[in-house]
């Protein structure tokens, strides 16, 4: 363990310090410090005499009447003070004062096993040669429900926009996402907060309800979500989508339902959700109208019947037991499955749940792919990976591990202007993305934000294409685990990829197949 001595820098802002202005007055810091870091000399002036002794407790900061003291860790607090870091002490004080646990938005922060310790294997002389992005073709398109539905969804890129509800997001943000889906030919999603009328035409590329002018080519698709709170759902709602997504869980709070606090249930949100203004809209954590998998199958049967067997049925899973859960979704009749990892989660959630519950995104992919292979439906029932996806590189890695596509949630909020302040749940988003306040919403122009999202998606698709071609492929379906290597042993253990410099995967991986246990 590194020594705590000398781990903190103590600074006093003299323009605020009472003693500096009036020597002899105020020696609070010297009185409260248990380690004699501060001392008053004979002339009555305060000095920092022993800052190597500071342990970073910030008692002086708390007691200083003019807030003049700053304590900064010279080494990471996690090295020298864990588990009682400043942020941990503050969190406990906050709970002790209020009796409430903290809520926040924007998913897991900090390190968890992820894609960063995986590298892409380029093509050289011994493998099929690379292709030239500028002159040769590369197929990025993915189709959902090709053999099972009258109207399959043909995504131009292997991307989708994960479910984020109107209510959690502003109307302008929902419109921007729909416009971006139209511009890039991908799938938008209503989320569980009901259907915003504008979404129906914008996502298909039309600028108005009359659908006379197609403003955005090629036009995208809209999935309507069927969830546990059933906000704003009806037969017409289901029929207005290009797909129905059955929500089982989400990365931000797997095992819990949605939390839309009354502060965000404005008249407009209440109208779309069909509930009283200002009431908390708390989705149940499970379906009250489902007791077992047989019921899920029956539910899927009537959802297909209501939508006249035309549109795909998607499932959305939180990060739990991927092998068994993906199998259950296939048995229930899914045409595509989105699985959201630990890092995922734009939703408001208790901080400990968003931070500490669920399987990391990377670790979900091999068991999910194995489940699809064992059922003989790999690449038929499409698998989309969500949770912390940042760019075309992450997408490439997910695809090479066996997914059919990825979803970008938080990244698209950031593309709209968000800087990840994590205050989504308060309704005071300074960019008007997760706010219902008309003044804040006015800051977000849906067309401009839609263009920014589309730009981000186009750029990420280009990255994906570039990586696919430099590794010797003209089609994303050719990608495999041979195109990736793990750079550390943990990543190799989780992903089943070969460790760099080694010719086989770790011993318990049998030719890419793992023991399908999630316990």
């Amino acid at each position, binding site marked *: 363990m590194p020594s705590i001595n000398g781990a903190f820098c103590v600074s006093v802002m003299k323009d605020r310090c009472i003693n500096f202005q009036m020597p002899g007055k105020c020696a609070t810091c010297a009185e409260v410090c248990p380690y004699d870091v501060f001392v008053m000399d004979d002339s009555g002036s305060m000095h920092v005499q022993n800052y190597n002794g500071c342990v970073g407790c910030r008692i002086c900061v708390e007691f200083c009447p003019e807030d003049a003291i700053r304590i900064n860790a010279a080494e990471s607090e996690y090295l020298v003070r864990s588990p009682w870091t400043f942020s941990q002490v503050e969190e406990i004080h906050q709970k002790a004062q209020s009796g409430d646990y903290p809520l926040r938005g924007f998913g897991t922060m900090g390190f968890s096993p992820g894609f960063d310790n995986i590298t892409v294997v380029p093509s050289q002389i011994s493998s099929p040669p690379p292709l030239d992005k500028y002159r040769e073709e590369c197929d990025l398109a993915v189709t959902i429900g090709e053999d099972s539905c009258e109207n399959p969804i043909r995504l131009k890129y292997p991307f989708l926009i994960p479910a984020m509800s109107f209510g959690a997001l502003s109307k302008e943000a929902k419109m921007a996402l729909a416009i971006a889906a139209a511009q890039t030919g991908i799938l938008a999603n209503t989320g569980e907060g009901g259907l915003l009328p504008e979404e129906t035409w914008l996502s298909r590329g039309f600028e108005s309800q009359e659908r006379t002018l197609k403003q955005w080519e090629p036009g995208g698709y809209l999935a309507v979500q069927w969830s546990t709170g059933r906000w704003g759902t*009806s*037969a017409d709602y289901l029929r207005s989508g290009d797909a129905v997504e059955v929500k089982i869980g989400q990365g931000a709070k797997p095992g819990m339902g949605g939390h839309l606090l009354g502060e965000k249930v404005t008249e407009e949100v209440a109208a779309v959700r069909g509930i009283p203004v200002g*009431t908390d809209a708390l989705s149940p954590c499970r379906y*009250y109208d489902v007791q077992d998998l047989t019921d899920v199958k029956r539910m899927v049967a009537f959802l297909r019947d209501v939508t006249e067997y035309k549109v795909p049925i998607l499932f959305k899973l939180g990060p739990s037991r991927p092998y068994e859960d993906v199998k259950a979704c296939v048995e229930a009749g899914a045409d595509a499955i989105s699985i959201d990892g630990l890092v995922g989660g734009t939703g408001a959630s208790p901080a400990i749940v968003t931070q500490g519950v669920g399987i990391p995104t990377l670790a979900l992919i091999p068991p999910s792919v194995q489940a699809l292979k064992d059922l003989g439906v790999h690449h038929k029932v499409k698998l989309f990976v969500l949770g912390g996806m940042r760019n075309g590189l992450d997408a490439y890695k997910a695809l090479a591990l066996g997914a059919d596509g990825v979803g970008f949630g938080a990244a698209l909020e950031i593309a709209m202007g968000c800087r990840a302040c994590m205050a989504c749940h308060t309704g005071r988003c300074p960019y008007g993305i997760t706010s219902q306040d008309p003044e804040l919403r006015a800051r977000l122009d849906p067309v401009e934000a839609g263009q920014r999202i589309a730009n981000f998606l186009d750029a990420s698709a280009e990255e994906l294409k570039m990586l696919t071609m430099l590794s010797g492929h003209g089609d994303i379906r050719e990608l495999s685990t041979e195109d990736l290597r793990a750079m550390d042993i943990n990543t190799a253990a989780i992903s089943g990829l070969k460790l760099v410099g080694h010719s086989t995967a770790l011993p318990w991986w049998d030719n890419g197949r793992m023991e399908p246990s999630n316990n």
Partner: protein
Amino acid sequence: MSVVVDASKGDLRSVSAELKELIIEEAVTIKESGHLHGLLAGFKGGELIVEGDSGDYLGALNDGATIRVTGNAGRYLADNMTSGTVIVEGDAGYGAGQYCYGGTMVIRGSAGDFTGVMNKGATLIVEGDVGDEVATYMLAGDLIILGNAGANLGNYLILGTIYIGGTWASLGHNTLLEDGLSEADRMKLRTLFDQYGVEGDPDSLTKIVRLSERPFYKTKSAEPPEKAPLPAPLG
């Protein structure tokens, strides 16, 4: 003689397609459909008579049809109904009338546990008894029970009204017993009873409403939290 559809050999898709092809000007009787789950989902009109017992999820997402079941209904009857009428001559299973936004459901017999959960505006009438956890997290509409209820009736009631003729094992959180009925209540109940041939006296019913507007979270101020003022520059 009304139109009769024999469902005994069909699956959901074929029976549903057959029903949708009929130009419904008179009542359609459906025979032997107990093996079909999710039948008559999302119908926008017509009068449909299910002879005998029904399967689960009958009349889910009903959006205007009048559905009568001559026997007992399975589980999750009229799930997520938005308009129309569903009448069951016998009993209904677990979870009848959940997630409804509108329409009317009448059960002549008894209904199971979790009836009317998350009702958001429908009128649900049960002439017999209901089970436990009925009307959990109801947000609007009316639930009228002429018989008795089990445990935890109306748990986390947000809005809407429960009227009950008999007794209950226990009431859930956020419920409040009101003293007697208003004239508007009486009128509403009498009209419903006449319309659906329900034998009952509105004045014998007890009215249950919500206790507080926001039982889950304390009401928080919409104002931003006060920022500590910066100290005035010294000297």
